[in-house]
Protein backbone atom coordinates (compact mmCIF):
# COMPACT_ATOMS: atom_id res chain seq x y z
CA UNK A 1 0.00 0.00 0.00
CA UNK A 2 1.50 3.34 -1.03
CA UNK A 3 1.63 6.15 1.48
CA UNK A 4 -0.44 9.05 0.12
CA UNK A 5 0.25 12.58 1.35
CA UNK A 6 -2.45 14.49 3.20
CA UNK A 7 -3.55 17.93 2.02
CA UNK A 8 -1.53 19.51 4.82
CA UNK A 9 1.56 17.65 3.64
CA UNK A 10 1.01 18.72 0.04
CA UNK A 11 0.63 22.33 1.12
CA UNK A 12 3.75 22.10 3.27
CA UNK A 13 5.67 20.60 0.34
CA UNK A 14 4.55 23.41 -1.95
CA UNK A 15 5.64 26.07 0.53
CA UNK A 16 8.93 24.26 1.10
CA UNK A 17 9.96 24.64 -2.55
CA UNK A 18 13.06 26.80 -2.68
CA UNK A 19 13.97 29.25 -5.44
CA UNK A 20 15.72 26.55 -7.46
CA UNK A 21 12.70 24.26 -7.31
CA UNK A 22 10.39 27.13 -8.20
CA UNK A 23 12.72 27.87 -11.10
CA UNK A 24 12.36 24.27 -12.29
CA UNK A 25 8.59 24.67 -12.20
CA UNK A 26 8.71 27.94 -14.10
CA UNK A 27 11.07 26.39 -16.64
CA UNK A 28 8.70 23.46 -17.13
CA UNK A 29 5.82 25.84 -17.63
CA UNK A 30 7.99 27.72 -20.12
CA UNK A 31 8.57 24.54 -22.10
CA UNK A 32 4.82 23.98 -22.37
CA UNK A 33 4.61 27.31 -24.17
CA UNK A 34 6.11 25.39 -27.10
CA UNK A 35 2.96 23.26 -27.15
CA UNK A 36 0.08 25.28 -25.73
CA UNK A 37 -1.04 28.91 -26.02
CA UNK A 38 0.43 31.11 -23.27
CA UNK A 39 -2.97 31.60 -21.62
CA UNK A 40 -3.43 27.84 -21.44
CA UNK A 41 -0.02 27.41 -19.85
CA UNK A 42 -1.03 29.79 -17.04
CA UNK A 43 -4.18 27.77 -16.52
CA UNK A 44 -2.19 24.55 -16.71
CA UNK A 45 -0.08 25.69 -13.77
CA UNK A 46 -3.08 26.92 -11.77
CA UNK A 47 -5.08 23.79 -12.47
CA UNK A 48 -2.17 21.56 -11.49
CA UNK A 49 -1.75 23.36 -8.17
CA UNK A 50 -5.46 23.19 -7.53
CA UNK A 51 -5.72 19.48 -8.24
CA UNK A 52 -2.76 18.51 -6.11
CA UNK A 53 -4.16 20.58 -3.23
CA UNK A 54 -7.72 19.31 -3.41
CA UNK A 55 -6.63 15.71 -3.75
CA UNK A 56 -7.84 15.14 -7.31
CA UNK A 57 -4.23 14.16 -7.92
CA UNK A 58 -2.79 12.20 -5.05
CA UNK A 59 0.88 12.42 -4.17
CA UNK A 60 2.42 9.03 -3.33
CA UNK A 61 5.14 10.09 -0.93
CA UNK A 62 7.70 7.72 -2.41
CA UNK A 63 7.66 9.88 -5.57
CA UNK A 64 9.77 13.07 -5.46
CA UNK A 65 7.39 16.01 -5.13
CA UNK A 66 8.53 17.89 -8.24
CA UNK A 67 8.38 14.73 -10.35
CA UNK A 68 4.81 14.28 -9.11
CA UNK A 69 3.92 17.87 -10.03
CA UNK A 70 5.47 17.43 -13.49
CA UNK A 71 3.50 14.21 -14.00
CA UNK A 72 0.28 16.04 -13.13
CA UNK A 73 1.17 18.82 -15.57
CA UNK A 74 1.75 16.49 -18.50
CA UNK A 75 -1.45 14.61 -17.81
CA UNK A 76 -3.37 17.88 -17.72
CA UNK A 77 -1.56 19.14 -20.81
CA UNK A 78 -2.95 16.14 -22.67
CA UNK A 79 -6.46 17.00 -21.45
CA UNK A 80 -5.97 20.62 -22.50
CA UNK A 81 -4.87 19.52 -25.92
CA UNK A 82 -8.06 17.54 -26.41
CA UNK A 83 -10.33 20.49 -25.65
CA UNK A 84 -11.23 23.53 -27.62
CA UNK A 85 -10.15 26.45 -25.52
CA UNK A 86 -10.94 29.45 -27.65
CA UNK A 87 -12.30 31.47 -24.74
CA UNK A 88 -9.77 31.73 -21.98
CA UNK A 89 -11.44 32.60 -18.67
CA UNK A 90 -9.84 34.92 -16.19
CA UNK A 91 -7.75 33.11 -13.66
CA UNK A 92 -9.77 31.60 -10.85
CA UNK A 93 -7.21 32.93 -8.46
CA UNK A 94 -7.49 36.50 -9.58
CA UNK A 95 -9.89 37.55 -6.85
CA UNK A 96 -13.23 36.53 -8.29
CA UNK A 97 -15.67 35.35 -5.67
CA UNK A 98 -18.22 32.59 -5.51
CA UNK A 99 -18.01 28.83 -5.61
CA UNK A 100 -17.34 28.91 -9.34
CA UNK A 101 -13.95 30.28 -8.44
CA UNK A 102 -12.56 26.80 -8.01
CA UNK A 103 -14.53 25.13 -10.75
CA UNK A 104 -12.23 23.20 -12.99
CA UNK A 105 -10.96 25.16 -15.92
CA UNK A 106 -11.54 22.18 -18.15
CA UNK A 107 -15.09 21.88 -16.87
CA UNK A 108 -15.79 25.33 -18.22
CA UNK A 109 -14.61 24.39 -21.68
CA UNK A 110 -16.68 22.66 -24.34
CA UNK A 111 -15.75 18.99 -24.61
CA UNK A 112 -17.43 18.48 -27.94
CA UNK A 113 -17.75 20.51 -31.09
CA UNK A 114 -14.31 22.02 -30.74
CA UNK A 115 -11.78 22.51 -33.44
CA UNK A 116 -10.73 19.05 -34.65
CA UNK A 117 -7.23 20.45 -34.94
CA UNK A 118 -7.11 20.80 -31.17
CA UNK A 119 -7.76 17.11 -30.70
CA UNK A 120 -4.61 16.08 -32.48
CA UNK A 121 -2.43 19.16 -32.04
CA UNK A 122 -0.79 18.05 -28.82
CA UNK A 123 -0.41 14.48 -30.03
CA UNK A 124 1.49 15.72 -33.08
CA UNK A 125 4.09 17.37 -30.88
CA UNK A 126 5.50 13.99 -29.89
CA UNK A 127 5.91 13.15 -33.56
CA UNK A 128 7.73 16.42 -34.16
CA UNK A 129 10.14 15.70 -31.33
CA UNK A 130 10.83 12.26 -32.75
CA UNK A 131 11.41 13.69 -36.21
CA UNK A 132 13.82 16.26 -34.83
CA UNK A 133 15.89 13.60 -33.12
CA UNK A 134 15.56 10.78 -35.61
CA UNK A 135 19.31 10.94 -36.26
CA UNK A 136 20.17 11.11 -32.56
CA UNK A 137 20.03 7.55 -31.25
CA UNK A 138 20.68 8.47 -27.64
CA UNK A 139 17.88 11.02 -27.39
CA UNK A 140 15.54 8.61 -29.13
CA UNK A 141 16.58 5.93 -26.64
CA UNK A 142 15.63 8.22 -23.76
CA UNK A 143 12.23 8.94 -25.32
CA UNK A 144 11.52 5.31 -26.21
CA UNK A 145 12.60 4.23 -22.75
CA UNK A 146 10.12 6.61 -21.16
CA UNK A 147 7.30 5.61 -23.50
CA UNK A 148 7.93 2.01 -22.55
CA UNK A 149 8.01 2.84 -18.86
CA UNK A 150 11.68 2.09 -18.26
CA UNK A 151 13.70 3.71 -15.51
CA UNK A 152 16.81 5.69 -16.39
CA UNK A 153 19.02 2.76 -15.37
CA UNK A 154 16.95 0.32 -17.42
CA UNK A 155 17.15 2.65 -20.44
CA UNK A 156 20.92 2.98 -20.14
CA UNK A 157 21.30 -0.77 -19.87
CA UNK A 158 18.93 -1.62 -22.72
CA UNK A 159 20.46 0.89 -25.13
CA UNK A 160 24.02 0.41 -23.89
CA UNK A 161 24.55 4.04 -22.93
CA UNK A 162 27.08 5.41 -20.49
CA UNK A 163 25.87 7.73 -17.75
CA UNK A 164 27.71 10.58 -19.45
CA UNK A 165 26.09 9.86 -22.82
CA UNK A 166 22.68 9.66 -21.14
CA UNK A 167 23.14 13.00 -19.42
CA UNK A 168 24.42 14.64 -22.60
CA UNK A 169 21.39 13.37 -24.50
CA UNK A 170 19.06 14.73 -21.82
CA UNK A 171 20.73 18.09 -22.17
CA UNK A 172 20.29 18.09 -25.97
CA UNK A 173 16.62 17.24 -25.56
CA UNK A 174 16.08 19.94 -22.94
CA UNK A 175 17.95 22.59 -24.90
CA UNK A 176 16.10 21.86 -28.11
CA UNK A 177 12.67 22.09 -26.54
CA UNK A 178 13.46 25.16 -24.45
CA UNK A 179 15.40 26.98 -27.15
CA UNK A 180 12.41 26.88 -29.44
CA UNK A 181 13.85 24.66 -32.15
CA UNK A 182 10.42 23.05 -32.30
CA UNK A 183 8.53 26.32 -32.56
CA UNK A 184 7.65 25.74 -36.19
CA UNK A 185 5.98 22.40 -35.53
CA UNK A 186 2.46 23.79 -35.51
Amino acid at each position, binding site marked *: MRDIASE*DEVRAALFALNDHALGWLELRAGAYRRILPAEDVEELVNETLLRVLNGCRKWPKDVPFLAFIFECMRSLAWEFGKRNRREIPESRFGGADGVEEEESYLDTQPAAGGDPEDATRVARFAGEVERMFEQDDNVMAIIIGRIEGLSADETRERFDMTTKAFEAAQKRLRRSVLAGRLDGWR
Partner: protein
Amino acid sequence: MKNDDEKRFAGTMAAVDDAILAATPAEVAAELRALGLDPKTAAAAMHAKIEAAVRARGKKLMQAAAEQLRRDRGLPVIAGDAAASGDLRSKLARLLSQPGVPTTLAARDGRTMSDADIVSLIEDLAELGITEDEQQ
Protein backbone atom coordinates in the same frame (compact mmCIF):
# COMPACT_ATOMS: atom_id res chain seq x y z
CA MET B 1 -6.45 2.92 -20.51
CA LYS B 2 -4.22 5.26 -22.46
CA ASN B 3 -4.40 5.15 -26.22
CA ASP B 4 -1.25 5.08 -28.31
CA ASP B 5 -1.21 8.84 -28.93
CA GLU B 6 -1.57 9.63 -25.25
CA LYS B 7 1.06 7.08 -24.26
CA ARG B 8 3.46 8.50 -26.84
CA PHE B 9 2.80 12.06 -25.71
CA ALA B 10 3.13 11.17 -22.01
CA GLY B 11 6.40 9.33 -22.63
CA THR B 12 7.89 12.12 -24.71
CA MET B 13 6.86 14.75 -22.16
CA ALA B 14 8.21 12.58 -19.34
CA ALA B 15 11.56 12.47 -21.13
CA VAL B 16 11.50 16.28 -21.36
CA ASP B 17 10.50 16.47 -17.68
CA ASP B 18 13.39 14.23 -16.69
CA ALA B 19 15.76 16.34 -18.77
CA ILE B 20 14.59 19.52 -17.05
CA LEU B 21 14.83 17.95 -13.60
CA ALA B 22 18.36 16.81 -14.45
CA ALA B 23 19.46 20.43 -14.95
CA THR B 24 21.66 21.94 -12.28
CA PRO B 25 20.49 25.12 -10.53
CA ALA B 26 22.98 27.08 -12.64
CA GLU B 27 21.60 25.53 -15.82
CA VAL B 28 18.03 26.27 -14.73
CA ALA B 29 18.96 29.90 -14.15
CA ALA B 30 20.66 30.09 -17.54
CA GLU B 31 17.69 28.47 -19.31
CA LEU B 32 15.27 30.87 -17.62
CA ARG B 33 17.39 33.84 -18.72
CA ALA B 34 17.41 32.42 -22.26
CA LEU B 35 13.61 32.46 -22.12
CA GLY B 36 13.77 36.11 -21.09
CA LEU B 37 12.92 35.39 -17.44
CA ASP B 38 14.90 36.62 -14.46
CA PRO B 39 15.33 33.58 -12.16
CA LYS B 40 14.47 35.49 -8.97
CA THR B 41 11.41 37.07 -10.55
CA ALA B 42 10.35 33.72 -11.98
CA ALA B 43 10.64 32.05 -8.58
CA ALA B 44 8.66 34.84 -6.94
CA ALA B 45 5.96 34.59 -9.60
CA MET B 46 5.63 30.84 -9.10
CA HIS B 47 5.53 31.28 -5.33
CA ALA B 48 2.72 33.83 -5.76
CA LYS B 49 0.78 31.29 -7.84
CA ILE B 50 1.18 28.72 -5.07
CA GLU B 51 -0.01 31.18 -2.43
CA ALA B 52 -3.00 32.11 -4.57
CA ALA B 53 -3.90 28.46 -5.10
CA VAL B 54 -3.63 27.72 -1.37
CA ARG B 55 -5.81 30.74 -0.56
CA ALA B 56 -8.38 29.67 -3.13
CA ARG B 57 -8.39 26.15 -1.71
CA GLY B 58 -8.82 27.47 1.85
CA LYS B 59 -11.69 29.65 0.73
CA LYS B 60 -13.32 26.69 -0.97
CA LEU B 61 -12.97 24.59 2.21
CA MET B 62 -14.55 27.32 4.29
CA GLN B 63 -17.41 27.68 1.85
CA ALA B 64 -17.99 23.94 1.94
CA ALA B 65 -17.81 23.93 5.73
CA ALA B 66 -20.27 26.80 6.05
CA GLU B 67 -22.60 25.07 3.65
CA GLN B 68 -22.41 21.84 5.65
CA LEU B 69 -23.15 23.75 8.85
CA ARG B 70 -26.17 25.37 7.27
CA ARG B 71 -27.44 21.93 6.30
CA ASP B 72 -26.62 20.37 9.65
CA ARG B 73 -28.69 22.44 12.06
CA GLY B 74 -28.23 19.87 14.80
CA LEU B 75 -24.60 20.78 15.32
CA PRO B 76 -23.93 21.61 18.96
CA VAL B 77 -22.15 24.94 18.78
CA ILE B 78 -19.89 25.48 21.77
CA ALA B 79 -19.03 29.00 22.83
CA GLY B 80 -16.03 30.48 24.60
CA ASP B 81 -12.26 30.46 24.24
CA ALA B 82 -11.08 29.34 27.66
CA ALA B 83 -8.38 27.09 26.27
CA ALA B 84 -6.54 29.97 24.64
CA SER B 85 -3.46 29.33 26.77
CA GLY B 86 -3.39 25.61 25.95
CA ASP B 87 -1.41 23.90 23.28
CA LEU B 88 -2.67 25.06 19.91
CA ARG B 89 -2.38 21.68 18.25
CA SER B 90 -4.24 19.98 21.06
CA LYS B 91 -6.89 22.66 20.92
CA LEU B 92 -7.26 22.21 17.17
CA ALA B 93 -7.51 18.45 17.59
CA ARG B 94 -10.24 18.89 20.22
CA LEU B 95 -12.16 21.27 18.01
CA LEU B 96 -11.92 19.03 14.99
CA SER B 97 -13.04 16.02 16.98
CA GLN B 98 -16.32 17.70 17.84
CA PRO B 99 -19.30 15.82 16.43
CA GLY B 100 -20.76 17.60 13.45
CA VAL B 101 -17.58 19.36 12.38
CA PRO B 102 -17.60 19.48 8.57
CA THR B 103 -15.65 16.57 7.18
CA THR B 104 -13.70 18.87 4.85
CA LEU B 105 -12.18 20.48 7.94
CA ALA B 106 -12.04 17.43 10.18
CA ALA B 107 -9.63 15.80 7.71
CA ARG B 108 -7.02 18.47 8.48
CA ASP B 109 -5.06 17.17 11.42
CA GLY B 110 -2.66 20.10 11.64
CA ARG B 111 0.42 17.95 12.10
CA THR B 112 2.30 19.64 9.27
CA MET B 113 0.77 23.08 9.71
CA SER B 114 2.66 26.04 11.10
CA ASP B 115 1.50 27.66 14.35
CA ALA B 116 0.24 30.61 12.31
CA ASP B 117 -1.79 28.29 10.08
CA ILE B 118 -3.24 26.57 13.13
CA VAL B 119 -4.22 29.89 14.69
CA SER B 120 -5.78 30.87 11.39
CA LEU B 121 -7.74 27.61 11.18
CA ILE B 122 -8.91 27.96 14.80
CA GLU B 123 -10.11 31.48 13.93
CA ASP B 124 -11.88 30.12 10.87
CA LEU B 125 -13.59 27.51 13.03
CA ALA B 126 -14.63 30.22 15.48
CA GLU B 127 -16.26 32.09 12.61
CA LEU B 128 -18.30 28.96 12.09
CA GLY B 129 -19.23 28.94 15.75
CA ILE B 130 -16.96 26.01 16.59
CA THR B 131 -15.06 26.93 19.76
CA GLU B 132 -14.33 25.34 23.08
CA ASP B 133 -16.75 25.48 25.96
CA GLU B 134 -15.47 27.16 29.14
CA GLN B 135 -16.30 24.05 31.13
CA GLN B 136 -14.18 21.77 28.94
